[in-house]
Every structure is written in structure tokens, then in C-alpha cells.
């Protein structure tokens, strides 16, 4: 489906319906140990090598809460403008599944750590840029489950004849963030959803509480969508969509559900309350097994864990020591550097804010910094499928090149060659310039001689140019560039050639 067809679709959908969306994100905390025991919380290691009686749920084991996880949750809540509970409780959520060591999950129910906050995000570009406030219903703390792999041909659960469980992940602390129903986004609902998740990701990074890599599962997102007929005061039946594994998928999943539900409603059908599965390859959602009855989790307060009563003085201290929030930071830097918020957002998405800042601090103009990092270097990173930080190019390297260009020692083309060398591991920018002998030919006398030789060697082309076929000058320019091994500034060469031929543009 083409982009414009999709947009048209959404326009039509929103003419008839008001979408209401909700997002549930799970953030895996990067604590040293698990939520209720001292096993390592990080990835890696052989299957079932990071387990103990507690996270394996062995009979007789007991949980003891990780202080750092509680602290991280409170900081997340504070950063999202939440109320922090004076008394919070853990609760058991009871259900059976092979990845659940106790067949109940220790989570929070009616007394979570944080409630009633908001997160501001920006949608749209330029003049159409709007601030959108997403309400946060709650932020609570719970434990993660083990990991299932499925035996069978496809490795998918469907058709597998057995499954295998690794409990290394069981018990890792998870923070669940639930938004209020998001109303009024209209056609922008997919963008709002994506923007929200992106902002949550930035926030977690700023707080340094999680790696938040969607592809690794340390940031997970479930998307809720419903459509209400325009003008109705009654909300539609919502569906929940899982398996949304990237920011892009968040937007696509919202879009897919909006169009699907609209089609169902248009044809007089009814939306079934269900959990749907998002498919990366098709961009569509499919329905799950229809369960005969909704699961009854039989929540009750966890008797093995004490009430959590955060000391108000401690909470105030945590609040006072919160880092600058990501969007505020981008606004501030944008103003300093003279960039639009959208441009800052782009830089942030490429994880280049610090690199750009370092480069600017070394004396490079913001526009040049941005040009190199978001242009040539971003392109190279994309090509080799890495990110900017892994390229091996430093802010100093960029500063060296930018300065040299400003001084007329290098051209842009030569600058790109420098970076090629740095990335190939030949050394720093300075070293590459020296070892490859990269320098603009600045001796105008020498250059004139080469130009004269090239004109002489291409006399017929020179004649054509004199007679008005200006575009043919490129051949002579090319010859000069070849003769100088690219170490001349192409624009300057062209000027020289034109002058020598006595032709003007």
C-alpha cells in the first residue's frame, strides 16, 4: 500500500470515527540483580545459569525486594510527573504458563508506586508542530518471566510439538507504564503513539535505568486501539496488539488497527475484545485464539513482601536530582545551536547529540557539525549497518576536517576521503591526511600549468566550449582533476579553465 493511499485511508477513517489509543510499555531495568533475588539481571550466559531457588520458584523459596528497582521506578514516576504513593503494595497476579516459575507473577494491583502523571511529546513538523500531552495512569513494578523457545520447524509457537524454557530472565525487574486513554489525536494517532514510545525511550536513557532496546526486548510495547463513531459519547471496543518490536511498528500497528476496525465497523460488524499479533512483514494484525472466558487473575496483596512506604524526604531528594528531561534538553540545545526542534529530534534519533555537541565545543560551526554527522557519516553508518558511535570517527576528526575545509586546505570531496580512511582504521583524521597526502592543490601557478596541459590535450573539446557548448568543459575539468589526483577543488578548477578559454557562464 502506498504512503499516500494509507494517509487517505486514515483521513477517511477519521471522518467517521474518533480513534482512542492506549499504550502499555514494559521497561526492563538494568539493575545488577533481579527483582526478588541476587541472581544477575543481565543478558547472556548459558540457559538456566542465572537462577536460584527464588527466581526458579522452588518450593520453600521467598522473595525479597530489590531497593534499586524501587528507586528506579520512583524516579521514572517523578520524571513523568506522577504522584508517588505513600504506601504501595506488591500483589500476586495468578495465572498458569510454563514461563512462570510460580504460576503467579509478583506485580502491583490497586496500590502501585506511581499514579496520575503526564508526558509531553511533539508531533508534526515546522508550522504544524504541536505539543501533545499524554496522561499517565500508573507506573508500577513487577517481575519478568522466563523465555520460551519453541521446538518444531518454524520455531514459532504454532505447530510446535514441545517448547523449551530458560529462566535466566525470570525475575528481572520490569516497570510497567500505562497511559490514560489518548483521545483527540485523530489522524495523527499513529504518530502520537510512536512519538510517545520514542519519548519514553529517551527518558529511560536520560534516567539511566534501562538499555531500552526494543529489538532486544528491554523495551516492550502493547498498543490498544478503539474507534468511536464521531459524535458518540461511548467509546468503542478496544483491542490489544502485541509483538510490536520497533518504533516504526508502533505507528504501523496503530494504523493497521484503525483501518481494520473501520472496515469491520463500516460493514456492520462488531469489534471483538481480543489480543492481536502484529506482523512485521505484512504490517497487519491477526487475531489470537478466542478465549472462552477472560482470564481471572485473582489479585491479592503479596503476603511475603512488606508494604513499600517511600520516605517523603528521600522522594524529594530523588526529584531534585532528576536529570534534564530529553525534550527540554533538545529545546535548549536547539536554541543554542540555531536548529529547529525537528532537526534536533533527528539528531537525537541518530544518537548523535553528544557527538554534535563535542564537535561544536571544538570550535566547529553547528551547521557544519550537523552536516557531517547527519550527512556523510550517518550515510556510512547506515551502509555498514552500525550506528554513529561504532563508526570509529571522533568529534576531533570531524573538527580537523571541517577546519581544513574552512582554511581551503581540503575540499568536501577530499574530506569524505579522510573519513573513509578513518573508518577503515588508518588512524585519526590528521594521520590520514598526512599518510594519504590529501591536500587541495593551492599553488595557482602549478594548477594553471595543469589546466593549460589539459586544454592542449583536449583541443577539440576546448573548441566546442568556445563555440558555446559550455557543458563540455566537464571533460577538461575531469582531466585536470585526474592529473591532480583529485587534490584540486573542482569548482575552482572549472573557473580557471573557463577563464583560460575566455568563456563565461
Amino acid at each position, binding site marked *: 500500500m502506498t504512503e499516500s493511499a494509507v494517509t487517505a485511508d486514515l483521513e477517511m477513517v477519521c471522518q467517521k470515527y474518533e480513534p482512542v489509543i492506549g499504550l502499555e510499555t514494559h521497561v526492563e531495568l538494568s539493575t545488577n540483580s533481579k527483582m526478588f533475588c541476587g541472581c*544477575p539481571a543481565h543478558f547472556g550466559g548459558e540457559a538456566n545459569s542465572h537462577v536460584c531457588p527464588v527466581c526458579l520458584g522452588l518450593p520453600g523459596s521467598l522473595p525479597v525486594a530489590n*531497593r534499586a528497582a524501587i528507586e528506579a521506578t520512583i524516579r521514572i514516576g517523578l520524571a513523568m510527573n506522577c504522584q508517588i504513593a505513600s504506601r504501595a503494595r506488591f500483589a500476586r497476579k495468578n495465572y498458569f504458563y510454563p514461563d512462570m516459575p510460580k504460576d503467579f507473577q509478583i506485580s502491583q494491583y490497586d496500590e502501585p508506586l506511581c499514579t496520575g502523571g503526564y508526558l509531553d511529546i511533539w508531533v508534526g513538523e515546522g508550522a504544524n508542530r504541536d505539543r501533545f500531552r499524554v496522561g499517565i495512569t500508573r507506573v508500577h513494578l513487577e517481575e519478568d518471566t522466563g523465555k520460551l523457545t519453541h521446538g518444531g520447524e518454524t520455531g514459532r*509457537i504454532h505447530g*510446535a510439538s*514441545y517448547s523449551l*524454557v530458560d529462566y535466566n530472565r525470570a525475575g528481572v525487574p520490569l516497570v510497567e507504564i500505562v497511559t490514560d486513554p489518548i483521545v483527540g489525536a485523530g489522524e495523527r494517532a499513529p504518530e502520537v503513539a510512536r512519538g510517545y514510545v520514542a519519548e519514553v525511550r529517551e527518558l529511560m536513557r536520560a534516567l539511566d535505568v534501562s538499555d531500552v532496546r526494543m529489538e532486544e526486548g528491554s523495551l516492550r510495547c502493547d498498543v490498544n486501539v478503539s474507534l468511536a463513531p464521531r459524535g458518540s459519547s461511548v467509546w468503542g471496543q478496544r483491542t490489544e496488539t502485541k509483538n510490536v518490536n520497533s518504533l516504526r511498528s508502533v505507528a504501523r500497528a496503530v494504523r493497521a488497527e484503525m483501518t481494520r476496525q473501520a472496515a469491520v465497523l463500516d460493514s456492520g460488524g462488531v469489534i471483538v475484545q481480543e489480543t492481536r499479533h502484529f506482523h512485521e512483514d505484512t504490517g497487519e494484525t491477526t487475531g489470537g485464539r478466542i478465549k472462552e472466558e477472560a482470564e*481471572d487473575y485473582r489479585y491479592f496483596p503479596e503476603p511475603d513482601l512488606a508494604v513499600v512506604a517511600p520516605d517523603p524526604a528521600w522522594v524529594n531528594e530523588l526529584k531534585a536530582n532528576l536529570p534534564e528531561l530529553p525534550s527540554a534538553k533538545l529545546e535548549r540545545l536547539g536554541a543554542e545551536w540555531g536548529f529547529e526542534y525537528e532537526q534536533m529530534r533527528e539528531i537525537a534519533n541518530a544518537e548523535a547529540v553528544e557527538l554534535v555537541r563535542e564537535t561544536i565545543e571544538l570550535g566547529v560551526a553547528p551547521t557544519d557539525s550537523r552536516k557531517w554527522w547527519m550527512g556523510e557519516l550517518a550515510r556510512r553508518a547506515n551502509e555498514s549497518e552500525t550506528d554513529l558511535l561504532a563508526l570509529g570517527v571522533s568529534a576531533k576528526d570531524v573538527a580537523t576536517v571541517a577546519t581544513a575545509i574552512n582554511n581551503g586546505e581540503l575540499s568536501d570531496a577530499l574530506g569524505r576521503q579522510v573519513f573513509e580512511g578513518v573508518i577503515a582504521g588508518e588512524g585519526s583524521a590528521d594521520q590520514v591526511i598526512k599518510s594519504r597526502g590529501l591536500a587541495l592543490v593551492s599553488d595557482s601557478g602549478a594548477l594553471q600549468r595543469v589546466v593549460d596541459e589539459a586544454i592542449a590535450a583536449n583541443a577539440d573539446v576546448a573548441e566546442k566550449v568556445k563555440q558555446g557548448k559550455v557543458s563540455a568543459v566537464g571533460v577538461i575539468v575531469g582531466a585536470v582533476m585526474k592529473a591532480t589526483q583529485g587534490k584540486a577543488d573542482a569548482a575552482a578548477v572549472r573557473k580557471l579553465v573557463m577563464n583560460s578559454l575566455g568563456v563565461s557562464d
Partner: protein
Amino acid sequence: MSQVNSEQFDLAHLAKLARIDFSQEELDTLRPQLLAILEYVARIGEVATPDVEPMSHVFKLENVVRSDEVTPGLSIEDALSGAPEQRAGRFAVPRILGEEA
């Protein structure tokens, strides 16, 4: 209301929630026993409790936490020692009906 309506008492549903595959015989014996027990325990509804807090912890315990340190756990062998079935260092479990269609 603490009284349990015999008609509304859905034993099959409870058995499913509890993952116990009762035989029909067992269900027939169990049902009257459970209703009798529930009728008996329902008398707690007689007690007026307008301003009483439910007691989920016997004594006031708050903020019992541990520091975020890694401590030794079980060896893989010990972890798997009770497993009814294992494969390649993982617990092998029977086929799970998929969530997605």
C-alpha cells in the same frame, strides 16, 4: 453478600482456573462438600466491619528490601535437577497452544 447461590457456583470454571482435571465422580462428591464449606465460612459476613482494615500482614513491616548485589545461585545442574524433562540445558515442556491464529 456472602451467600453462595448453588446455581451460580460454577465448579467447572473454578477447576479450569485451578488447572485440576477432576473426574465427573469427584465433581459430584466435591460439589455438596464445597457448598457446605462455603455456607459455613460465609458466616463471616455476619460480622459488621465498617471501618476495619483488612489484615494482610500480621505485624507492621515496612520497606524490607535488599541491596542490588549479585549473590551466588544454583548450578545449571542443580537448577535442572528436578526437571521431568530437559533438552539442551532447558526445561522441556509439552506443546503450548499458540496465542496467535
